[in-house]
């Protein structure tokens, strides 16, 4: 990456004015009418069957998009019930068990049916094959199966939540879940078990795609960081998800056959469940956040017109998080009765796993240095991500330090912390990614004004929702309390008020994005003048992504030399990534 080459910064070049016309067109310019008639993955086949039986990764990605959006809405409604109930110290609208079902529904739906599948399912599916220059996933049929397994498990799970419900919290701790809860623990567990298979299958597919489907010139060092992040995520999914499955199966075995595994009255140990649960669920938070970090790399570089600062540091910090992230699960259990020295090891490793996240934040910030930054919606979301994820990250240090965790454990401080990482981090990254690639997926550009406004509303609403919860948590307010001492009311009212604002923010994209499908301007192939391979084809892409096999000459983020290859190729109009019959030997010296 740092090898000297002829592309210096000393080539002054007018930056083309940002507009929504294609910047680099591998094919002759088409009029909008011709563009519409050109076959793309959306219009080359029609009919319901062409969607439900499709093996096209892009269509499957869109199916995920619709599904996870619906589940997000369910989870958001549950969150609305929870927050509204907390306006009053005695509970405003819900009975005690209704509240317990509401927060469990919020937690489980958001985690298992939204945060885990959203970026791998939608953006991973849609973009990984295109980013590596492939026609499709390595196993297209497996990809479709993975969607249906996930959809079946998810629908079954949501059905169980609506008939009878689940009141164990997403953590499902026995013996409460195994013996004392009167809700659908077994069937809900089965739903989670099924969706787990989908995670594993998608992960296998992505790993195989990255290994085997890269186009000529796409070396590991030239992979976009989003692909690196998806790769690291997939490795975690394959290693961790089976443990969750085993945990749930053991819970079922105990419940059905009375084998003492977790229940101390028949010889089990409830702490065993916690070890196994967190062995999955801690890496699971990295399953959720790593793809988001990948998106941020793509967005920040594009809108600041910069190379990523420290490509290797960012890529390897993902791998570091993935590896060390497996060894920190016990920091959820400092007070649960696990051994003191075991706790110390987990605390130390927790501090170590915080370092790669810090490295990423510094690298992202440094990426902006010397840039030429524009502030469209994806960039505002990405900056929001840095702001919120920083708070989420540093507040994790309070919880990773064993001494302070005693007081803060199981309080609203924890709630605020993980919402800052999961929503402030992941949700903002998802919005950044959705807004960034929406023109590529649909071929339409959404409203610039409304999208920027939505980003700001979400940012303000989110920050104000969870800041008071840090205070309430430090004051001692326990989590999962429908009723609480009146001195905490002020924090809860502030939090709920901001949550409504945040809700408005999250609802806005549904309107202007769907509106853009009907009224949006044609986006052109590359509206943001991004360098990734996915931008070098038409929007929406054709059924097979690329007209001809792409050839890669450079690392992914050569924004500061917009016409770099032009210099090399003596007047070729191709961009940094070149399509088709570009001269292959000229770019060989350049790369990561």
């Amino acid at each position: 990456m740092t090898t000297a080459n002829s592309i210096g910064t000393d080539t002054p070049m007018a930056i083309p004015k940002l507009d929504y016309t294609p910047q680099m067109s591998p094919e002759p310019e088409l009029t909008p009418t011709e563009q519409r008639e050109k076959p793309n993955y959306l219009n080359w086949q029609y009919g319901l069957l062409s969607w439900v039986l499709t093996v096209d990764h892009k269509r499957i990605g869109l199916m995920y998009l619709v599904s996870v959006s619906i589940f997000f809405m369910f989870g958001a409604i549950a969150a609305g019930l929870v927050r509204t109930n907390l306006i009053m110290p005695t509970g405003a609208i819900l009975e005690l068990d209704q509240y317990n079902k509401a927060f469990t529904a919020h937690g489980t739906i958001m985690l298992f049916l939204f945060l885990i599948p959203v970026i791998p399912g939608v953006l991973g599916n849609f973009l990984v094959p295109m980013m590596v220059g492939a026609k499709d996933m390595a196993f297209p049929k497996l990809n479709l199966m993975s969607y249906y397994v996930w959809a079946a498990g998810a629908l079954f799970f949501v059905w169980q939540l609506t008939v009878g419900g689940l009141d164990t919290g997403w953590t499902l701790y026995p013996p409460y879940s195994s013996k004392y809860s009167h809700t659908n623990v077994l069937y809900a567990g089965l739903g989670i078990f099924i969706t787990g298979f989908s995670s594993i299958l998608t992960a296998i597919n992505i790993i195989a795609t990255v290994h085997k489907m890269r186009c000529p010139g796409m070396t590991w060092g030239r992979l976009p960081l989003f692909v690196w992040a998806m790769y690291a995520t997939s490795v975690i999914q394959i290693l961790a998800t089976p443990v969750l499955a085993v945990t749930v199966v053991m819970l079922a075995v105990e419940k059905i056959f009375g084998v003492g595994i977790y229940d101390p009255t028949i010889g089990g140990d409830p702490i065993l469940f916690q070890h196994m649960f967190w062995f999955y669920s801690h890496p699971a938070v990295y399953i959720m956040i790593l793809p988001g970090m990948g998106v941020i790399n793509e967005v920040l570089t594009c809108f600041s017109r910069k190379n990523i600062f420290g490509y290797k540091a960012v890529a390897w910090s993902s791998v570091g998080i993935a590896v060390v992230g497996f060894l920190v699960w016990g920091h959820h259990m400092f007070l649960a009765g696990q051994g003191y020295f075991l706790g110390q090891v987990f605390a130390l490793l927790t501090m170590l796993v915080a370092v790669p996240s810090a490295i990423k934040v510094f690298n992202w910030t440094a990426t902006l240095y010397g840039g030429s930054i524009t502030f469209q919606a994806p960039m505002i979301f990405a900056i929001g991500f840095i702001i919120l994820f920083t708070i989420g990250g540093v507040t994790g240090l309070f919880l990773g330090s064993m001494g302070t965790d005693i007081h803060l454990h199981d309080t609203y401080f924890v709630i605020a912390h993980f919402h800052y990482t999961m929503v402030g981090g992941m949700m903002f990254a998802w919005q950044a990614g959705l807004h960034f690639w929406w023109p590529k997926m649909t071929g339409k550009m959404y409203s610039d004004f409304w999208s920027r406004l939505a980003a700001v509303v979400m940012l303000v609403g989110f920050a104000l929702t969870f800041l008071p919860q840090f205070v309430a948590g430090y004051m001692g307010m326990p989590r999962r309390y429908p009723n609480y001492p009146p001195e905490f009311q002020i924090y809860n009212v502030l939090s709920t008020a901001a949550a409504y604002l945040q809700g408005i923010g999250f609802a806005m994209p549904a309107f202007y994005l769907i509106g853009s499908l009907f009224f949006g301007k044609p986006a052109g192939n590359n509206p943001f003048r991004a360098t990734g391979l996915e931008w070098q084809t038409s929007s929406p892409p054709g059924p097979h992504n690329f007209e001809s096999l792409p050839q890669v000459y450079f690392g992914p983020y050569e924004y500061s030399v917009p016409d770099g290859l032009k210099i090399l190729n003596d007047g070729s109009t191709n961009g940094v990534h070149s399509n088709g019959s570009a001269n292959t030997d000229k770019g060989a010296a350049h790369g990561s």
Partner: protein
Amino acid sequence: MFASLDTSGFLPPQASEFAVQSDMLFYYITAVCILGSAVVYGLLAYCCFMFARKEGVPSKRILGSTKLEFLWTSIPLVFFLSFFVWGVRLYDIAINPPPEAHEREYFVVGKQWMWKIQHPTGQREINELHLPIDTAVKISGTSEDVIHDFGVPAFRSKFDVVPGRITSAWYKPNKEGTYHLFCDQYCGQGHSQMVGKIHVLSQENYQAWLDGSYRIREGKNPVDGSPSWEGRKLFFKLQCVNCHNKESESRAPSLEAIYKTKRAIQGGTTIMATDDYLRNSIRNPMLHIRDGWKPIMPAYTRSQVTEEELLNVISYIKSLRPGDLPSRTESTPAPVGAKTQDTQAPAGGN
């Protein structure tokens, strides 16, 4: 159910030495984190303003810097490790009670959805714990059903109460007052009702409380296991409550707050209500008849109430304050359900 307790601003009360130590680390981490975040936000703001797109100014091609990477790997690492070391030291204090605490071990049993607590001296409480000030005490607990967590924010203390295990914590309260007790581990429908109070009392009040003669609130029963509590049970068993109750004073005088007061007796004199007077009034009521009352109090012989029992009854009478006398139909409620003592209906007891 929840009474609002004294709180000052954004800080929970610090009611033990450990709370102060815990907050020190909290403030240290807070300071470092605010500083670190300020650096990130400062750079972010600087870059966003300075490098906003200007016509004709291209972006610079910067690929990274090993020096900077080293810098922002090592500096956070050093701080993070300091959090770790300090955190372990603090945790070490939290889990290792001083030797004298082992001699004062309180037992806690959590069950859906209440805390049952027993003092080393035998007294029992539900959802409340009275502690002496400046005394290190150890709290050991287990659960009858699911996992609970015995959390006292004012002491910055918390430990999971796990079925099939005994776990413990220790406190050395250093500030009198009443503090929250929360169940911090989700335990089902009544999780948020599984709350209580920690009362930190002066040494004298704590001793008086153990005897049953000191109570924090009006109308509250003497603590289970104290002489007064035994006396209260006898008060019902021996049917004293039929005449001495809060509903009527037609047959018998009130017994509230009479200890060490002068009582007018027939014959135009007064007599100090001492222990001896109280004992005589039960064993041999005809000795002194209260002025204005008929001599209908039966004498309780040794076959009806032993001397030990009598001491308990006297202890109970001594502990009665205005409003404490039970009603005739009252019985001690079975401690079921999630209600704390604050919320029980007046007819329900206490």
